[in-house]
């Protein structure tokens, strides 16, 4: 057999049948469900008199709308509450492999809890009505976001219709310098190929810098594949993957473990496999990244300056830059480290795992949030992440430094709950999108790593975390 990429293997092993034009019926192993994109799908199923095909594929949680404080008070916003209660009712009616409702100790961001519970496994197809489903590709799974019609399709048929994407390899070799993280790596990739650079592709991340990342770091990288336009990002299986999964609640049990591991070891691109596109990056040359605009591709190194649209030749890009600068309230040529911030958000499916909180706490330890910063919020990705952080005393570190320690959820990544920016407020955020209004109407988002966000909280403006004395 010819040499195959990891993507080829994942795709081929899930094709139920193929139409004459190449449209494939693809079998779905794991269906992650949350409250925002599922109600209309369950309703569609009901209206058509259909039942879920295999409820044991479903792992569900409420994360987008849930508050991050005063949990005893429940969900105050009646519309949000209805949405969460609708999920409760739908899961009650149909069942699921696992459901972590609001206030369950294992509740959390769906892309944090899937891997944490061992519900995401190598070789699986994983879908969710959420674009950041690409996160799960870190486990050599074929994982991608779908719309609500497709949520209904998977519920009803356990399959999706689709065509195979092209393949792209992004190789990052060399060692990431101290203070430069997975987040900086993926932001640099997006800066290089652009937010549409991966459109139509499934991206496999590889190279020694990627191999050296923990699972948390790999999830951060794959999470943002969609910010480069690729529905799916993935990373081959190695010891790091297998060590992470061992003993997780839904990982294969004793009698199946060895067999599963043997299979998972095959989930790498074969030597000699070819990709439709290859991008190579020298990780050793990277610096911490900060976005300056309203698209994740509008990113520079922390020691750089805000770019000048006049130097951009493409008129559409130039207008986009001008509009972004006006929205962000920035002028060309300004050093990034001169940009003062009002708020800090450490959380989201990109950066709310234990390692992210450790990195932020290491910067916060023994320091104080600047008096000019109105609020610096830390939102753990899940109940278990929060509990782990508290066992390690990280909550004390954050609280002593003046950070606000919250309950888990999506929170201010997309501001569907009460956590949001006010118009004009500027935020150092560890989330994934700096779109206009993303964190609140008129809010200004700068995407950074957890360590960089903590450093900005302390300094009151962006600062190179490598130089923080």
């Amino acid at each position, binding site marked *: 057999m010819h040499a195959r990429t990891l993507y080829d293997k994942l795709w081929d092993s899930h094709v*139920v049948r193929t*139409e004459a*034009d190449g*449209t494939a*019926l693809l*079998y779905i192993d794991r269906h992650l469900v949350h409250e*925002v*994109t599922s109600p*209309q799908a369950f*309703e569609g199923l009901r209206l058509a008199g*259909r039942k879920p*095909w295999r409820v*044991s594929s479903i792992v569900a949680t409420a994360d987008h709308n849930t508050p991050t404080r005063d949990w005893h008070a429940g969900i105050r916003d009646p*519309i949000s509450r*209805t*949405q969460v209660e*609708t999920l409760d009712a739908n899961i009650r009616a149909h069942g699921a492999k696992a459901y972590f409702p609001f206030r369950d100790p294992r509740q959390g961001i769906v892309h944090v809890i899937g891997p944490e519970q061992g519900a995401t*496994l190598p*070789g*699986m197809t994983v879908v969710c*009505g*959420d*674009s950041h*489903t690409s996160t799960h590709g870190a486990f050599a799974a074929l994982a*991608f*976001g*779908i*719309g*609500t*019609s*497709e949520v209904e399709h998977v519920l*009803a*048929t*356990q*399959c999706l*219709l*689709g*065509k195979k994407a092209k393949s792209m390899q992004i190789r990052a070799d060399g060692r990431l310098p101290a203070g430069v993280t997975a987040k900086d790596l993926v932001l640099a990739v997006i800066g290089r190929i652009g937010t549409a650079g991966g*459109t*139509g592709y499934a991206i496999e991340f590889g190279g020694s810098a990627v191999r050296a990342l923990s699972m948390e770091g790999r999830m951060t990288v794959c999470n943002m594949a*969609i910010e480069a*336009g*690729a*529905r799916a990002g993935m990373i081959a299986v190695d010891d790091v993957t297998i060590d992470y999964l061992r003993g997780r609640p839904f990982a*294969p049990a004793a009698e199946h473990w060895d*067999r*599963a591991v043997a299979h998972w070891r095959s989930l790498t691109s074969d030597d000699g496999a070819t990709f439709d596109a290859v991008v190579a990056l020298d990780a050793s040359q990277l610096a911490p990244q900060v976005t300056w605009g309203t*698209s994740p591709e509008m990113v520079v190194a922390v020691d750089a300056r805000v770019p000048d649209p006049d130097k951009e030749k493409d008129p*559409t890009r130039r*207008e*986009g830059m001008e*509009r972004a600068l006006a929205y962000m309230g920035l002028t060309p040529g300004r050093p990034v480290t001169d940009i003062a911030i009002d708020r800090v958000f450490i959380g989201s499916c990109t950066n709310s795992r234990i390692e992210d909180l450790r990195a932020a706490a290491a910067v916060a330890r023994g320091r104080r949030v600047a008096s000019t910063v109105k609020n610096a919020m830390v939102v753990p990705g899940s109940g278990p992440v929060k509990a782990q952080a508290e066992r390690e005393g990280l909550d004390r570190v954050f609280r002593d430094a003046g950070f606000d320690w919250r309950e888990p959820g999506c929170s201010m990544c*997309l501001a*569907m709950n009460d956590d949001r920016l006010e*118009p004009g407020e500027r935020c150092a955020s560890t989330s994934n*999108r700096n*779109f*206009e209004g*993303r964190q609140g*109407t008129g809010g200004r988002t700068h995407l950074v790593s957890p360590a960089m966000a903590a450093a900005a909280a302390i300094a009151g403006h962006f600062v190179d975390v490598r130089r923080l004395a």
Partner: protein
Amino acid sequence: MEPFRTVTGLVAPLDRANVDTDAIIPKQFLKSIKRSGFGPNLFDAWRYLDRGEPGMDNAARPANPDFVLNDPRYRGAQILLVRRNFGCGSSREHAPWALADYGFRALIAPSYADIFHNNCYKNGLLPIVLPEAQVDRLFDAVRAFPGFRLTVDLERQTVGTPDGSIACAFDVDPFRKHCLLNGLDDIGLTLQHAEAIRAFEAKRLHEQPWLT
């Protein structure tokens, strides 16, 4: 789903690249558990001068006179002309729901984000891809001629002016075309292969028994 065959309609130009789904329908409107009613909040933050929240009387809100869809000459537009990478960002199907609920039947752009592109087809909204140069030409034409209309013919895969002065061909995936032309329900089609799915499932569980 309503079949899509031909549409002749007024064209509205939205001259921005990388329009994201948060801009198309901001998150506060995603709390609805319905599929309909998103049209009044399409492009909410650009379209109105105040901050939109669910449950507001949108007709009473101050409109942003500088936003193109508020220009009376584009009222009733059915075709939206946009720039590259339209619909990037989240997977929210509320974005095509809002566009369709507003009255759009087709989009024209040099490129779309993948998930959004896919979601459009599920809602009878045709996302036409044309080369950048042709899109430029359409932007020029729509600005030059008030009341500029285009006819989209899905069967023939053409888009052009009713008088034939502009005529472009576009590609469309044959399976999607078939579904759109006939207003077919994907799920019904897939369930015709229920036996193949069951057989696949049994084989998979035999080979990887941990995938329960």
